[in-house]
């Protein structure tokens, strides 16, 4: 039996890129940092706050997200939304995710035969 440590590292590697995909999908509906974190967690994407917050800013710098300050509620919050560029990149990422899933399926079937 492999150690939990080894398993954890592999799962982490596998999950790493999917946080970006999940964020770009989720932010089609504008949201602020912590609310996004909770939504992602609820949908099976547990991510650390200290990973997600810097990631959002990086995606904004890359032009994949736009942001807007919302001052209507109890405290001002920065709302992020997936930009057109972000949507285009997301399209490519989702295609690739599907391709990976298909390749794995084919491989499994191929080995099974």
């Amino acid at each position, binding site marked *: 039996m492999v150690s939990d440590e080894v398993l954890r590292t592999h799962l982490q590697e596998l999950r790493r890129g999917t946080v970006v995909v999940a964020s770009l999908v989720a932010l089609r509906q504008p949201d602020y940092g912590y*609310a996004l974190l*909770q939504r992602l967690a609820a949908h099976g994407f547990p991510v650390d*706050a*200290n990973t997600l*917050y810097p990631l959002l800013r990086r995606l904004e710098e890359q032009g994949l997200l736009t942001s807007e300050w919302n001052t209507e509620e109890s405290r001002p919050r*920065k709302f992020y939304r997936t930009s057109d560029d972000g949507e285009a990149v997301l399209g490519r990422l989702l295609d690739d995710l599907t391709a990976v899933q298909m390749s794995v399926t084919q491989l499994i079937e191929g080995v099974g035969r």
Partner: protein
Amino acid sequence: MSSLTDRYLAATLRAVPQQRRAELADELRASIEDMIEDRTAGGQGRGAAEREVLTELGNPEQLAARYTDRRLQLIGPRYFLVWWRVLRTLLTFIPAIVGVVTGVVKATVGGEPGAAIGAGVASGLQTAVQIAFWVTLCFAVLERTNTSLNLPEWTVDQLPEETRERQITLVDSCASIVFLLVAVAFLPWQHFQPWLSGDGSRLPMIDPALWSFWLPALIVVLVASMGLEIAKYRAGRWTWPLVAANAVLNLAFAAPLVWLLLTDRLLNPALIERFAWLREGGAEDVAQVAVVVTAVVVVWDVIDSAVKARKAAA
């Protein structure tokens, strides 16, 4: 008193460039408040919730590094191998050259042969530390400025021709040569360095009369041994001619030494006069022990080289 959140924000923002601080401060404060609120709504005390949230966010410097994409390593994988190669290459010969030159200058121009070894070792060490520091600094700067070195890509042509592991490593050869240099330097050192400082008189350990022939002859053998070390390194392994040369040089050094020891001609007679225990049979004991040690070392070295040559030939 400022709250833990204020202190956390200040610690994080300190490591973020000025122009981005204000906005990041607002956003991060809002995020922290959101997280605390969520926990207090669940019935937790505010103080405990704040602590928990900040602990979850972790070391503020690390968080700031994530925000600014700053590297948390001195030299990353991109430059590590080049850095290591440059460092190793420079350290193999520059400190040794500087040390030897300093020692020689000190002994000749400076006229202080006694202080030559110390000065050489010290300057060699200083040079090594300086090289390590400046090379590492250069690569750390490259890492942070993201400068491309435009180094040629690795190709299969760079593969070393040798597939067998070296029997004679560079470290071994360098160590042997340094040892031989020290041995050569010891002979003039013991002659010039005051052995007894009590009345200021200089008493060399070895009979000064031997400088007429035997000591220069031994120095020649030691220098020839350095040549053998270089030849051995170039061959990469022990070969039978090298074993023969090694045996000859060992004998050329040991035979005169043993003969001088057994005929009581090695130690300075004035030194023996000075010490009662040397006068009363101590000198003979010293000679006998030295003869045995020399014989054991020579025999062991020759057998060892022959065994290695056989292994290398196999």
